[in-house]
């Protein structure tokens, strides 16, 4: 008997029970789509975090201490250390900003303009211009703050004065109100590690120092001469500042993140695989029912000359078709769902999710929703696709064997 004929017979047998077959295929689709979609999310999130970390460069250390204040003396000291190329001091404060009558949360960064460029890679001003490193209260405003009404008309334009109520830095509980003049509006940067430019206001160090009435910094970003010095510089800093020093390198975080992503992928992939396993039980169950229902048909086919293996193959082909169709549609739907999920999750679940922060307590970044692009791993897609017919055929093995071993005389008598 030709395989093609067996496939045709299997297909026609399945097609008789359209609803039953569709539901079985649906259960396989859900399993496959879940594997594809969920692993795409974890890998996408992982890649997004890693790429935002990589923007800082592999030669970066983030430094702060918890029991004292970092001043120009510290900056000078660290700058003099072996292997240190540059030190970027940053003042940071949470603030409420009055934008067109609405009070919006923002983060104020005091940072010199050339240092900001190092941090953002490129200062993209869509309206106005950058500020100068002076004590003038000129500010660059994040995209989301300027366009918070989500229309094309900006809420903030250059030259405009905005009222800012700061809530203090790490060691300050005082609050103060100040006016800033908008020098320019930044383009959208999306989510970044450490800083979320879209919901931040950048002013010069001097201006921040004056506005917040303080001479210390909240953190220092240290650039080393070569990534190989990262460990050495970290060690020196810990020796000088003791155990309260927090030295973090994005490279370390990247490694940790990648490990977490792999584990999360395995976990979510595993959960999704459970749904495929459930689907396979469905196939097993339904095939047993189908084979029992078709006892007389099997008896008839044996009377017509079907060998045991013909019956076995026919049932296995039925399982294979269910798995194959479920696998193909599952991958397609999985890919589609993968790209839909970030919108659903980004809009709600992940509102509180931000890139990993180096501080122990309060996080950086403002209230920006985390955005990422799902990454469809072709290997994972192939595995999910191949798993469906495999699992489905395995589930059909027992019913197929049972059918093939039926005694034709009894099968023909079966009512």
């Amino acid at each position: 008997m030709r395989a093609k004929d067996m496939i045709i017979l299997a297909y026609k047998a399945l097609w008789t029970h359209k609803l039953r077959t569709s539901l079985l295929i649906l259960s396989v689709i859900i399993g496959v789509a879940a594997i594809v979609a969920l692993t795409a999310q974890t890998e996408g999130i992982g890649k997004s975090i890693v790429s935002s970390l990589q923007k800082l460069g592999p030669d970066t250390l983030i430094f702060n201490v918890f029991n004292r204040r970092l001043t120009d003396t510290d900056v000078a000291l660290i700058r003099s250390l072996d292997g240190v190329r540059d030190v970027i001091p940053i003042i940071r404060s949470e603030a409420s900003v009055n934008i067109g009558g609405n009070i919006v949360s923002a983060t104020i960064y005091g940072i010199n303009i050339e240092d900001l460029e190092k941090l953002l890679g490129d200062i993209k001003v869509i309206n106005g211009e950058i500020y100068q490193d002076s004590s003038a209260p000129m500010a660059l405003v994040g995209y989301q703050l300027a366009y918070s009404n989500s229309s094309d008309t900006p809420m903030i334009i250059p030259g405009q004065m905005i009222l800012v109520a700061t809530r203090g830095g790490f060691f300050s509980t005082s609050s103060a109100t100040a006016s800033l003049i908008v020098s320019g509006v930044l383009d959208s940067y999306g989510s970044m590690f450490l800083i979320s430019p879209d919901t931040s206001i950048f002013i010069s160090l001097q201006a921040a120092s004056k506005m917040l009435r303080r001479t210390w910094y909240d953190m220092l970003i240290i650039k080393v001469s070569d990534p190989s010095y990262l460990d050495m510089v970290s060690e020196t800093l810990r020796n000088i500042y003791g155990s309260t020093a927090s030295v973090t390198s994005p490279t370390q975080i990247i490694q940790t993140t990648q490990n977490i992503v792999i584990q999360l992928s395995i976990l979510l992939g595993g959960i999704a695989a459970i749904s495929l396993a459930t689907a396979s039980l469905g196939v097993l169950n339904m095939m047993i029912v189908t084979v029992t229902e078709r006892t007389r048909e099997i008896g008839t086919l044996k009377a017509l000359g079907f060998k045991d293996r013909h019956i076995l193959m026919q049932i296995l082909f039925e399982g294979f078709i269910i798995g194959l169709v479920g696998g193909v549609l599952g991958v397609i739907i999985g890919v589609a769902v993968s790209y839909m999920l970030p919108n659903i999750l980004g809009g709600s679940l992940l509102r509180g999710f931000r890139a990993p922060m180096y501080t122990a307590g309060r996080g950086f970044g403002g209230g920006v929703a985390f955005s990422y692009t799902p990454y469809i791993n072709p290997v994972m897609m192939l595995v999910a696709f191949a798993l469906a017919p495999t699992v489905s055929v395995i589930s059909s093995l027992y019913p197929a064997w049972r059918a093939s071993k039926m005694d034709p005389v009894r099968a023909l008598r079966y009512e």
Partner: protein
Amino acid sequence: MSDEPLIRLLDVWKIYRIGKLESPALRGVSLDIYKGEFLSIIGPSGSGKTTLLNLLGALDRPTKGEILFEKISLNKLSPDQLAEFRNKKIGFVFQSFNLLNHLTVVENVEIPMMVLGVPPKIRREKALKILGELLPEEVFYKRPIEISSGEQQRVAIARALANDPDVILADEPTGNLDSSNAHVVMRIFRKLRDEGKTIVMVTHNQELTSYADRVVRLRDGQIVEVIKR
């Protein structure tokens, strides 16, 4: 009808065992069936008619005794060889037709040829030719459930003829048919017999045995009477 028996049953016993209980369905049946003969097996229910037919059709093996088909013992054939034997040498016609409802009439007739590996085009032509002699063309592409029971049985006969077998085994072929359709089926069998086919039919309808060349009466698993017509 030739003088040489096509099928020989030599002291055939079939004993069914249910647990420790033994229930003999056939008790030492010996019978010669000749090529081109229309043989009818009658008897009350439980007399072993269907068991005998199943043994003739190689669907089952005797507990004791031997069945020779063209001098070859069926006992010696493997399950796969028995399947091939059924496919090529035997055509089955059942009381409840046993057609596959998910296939069309013509596809049902093609099944035995599919098993044999006949290419689609050739088997379709052959199926249509066989059907053409038994049924009106408009039913060829319908599903069995869409046609009458008389037509369904004729489809089953067409299917039985698909591989041009030597023997047609019919188990109560008219049991689900009205009398006019029953006579149609009998006339078909008679015609097939005239064309050289061997027909073995199990029935309990005395009236239909008039179509047969020989009537074998079974009781309690034994042949009690052979009537030659």
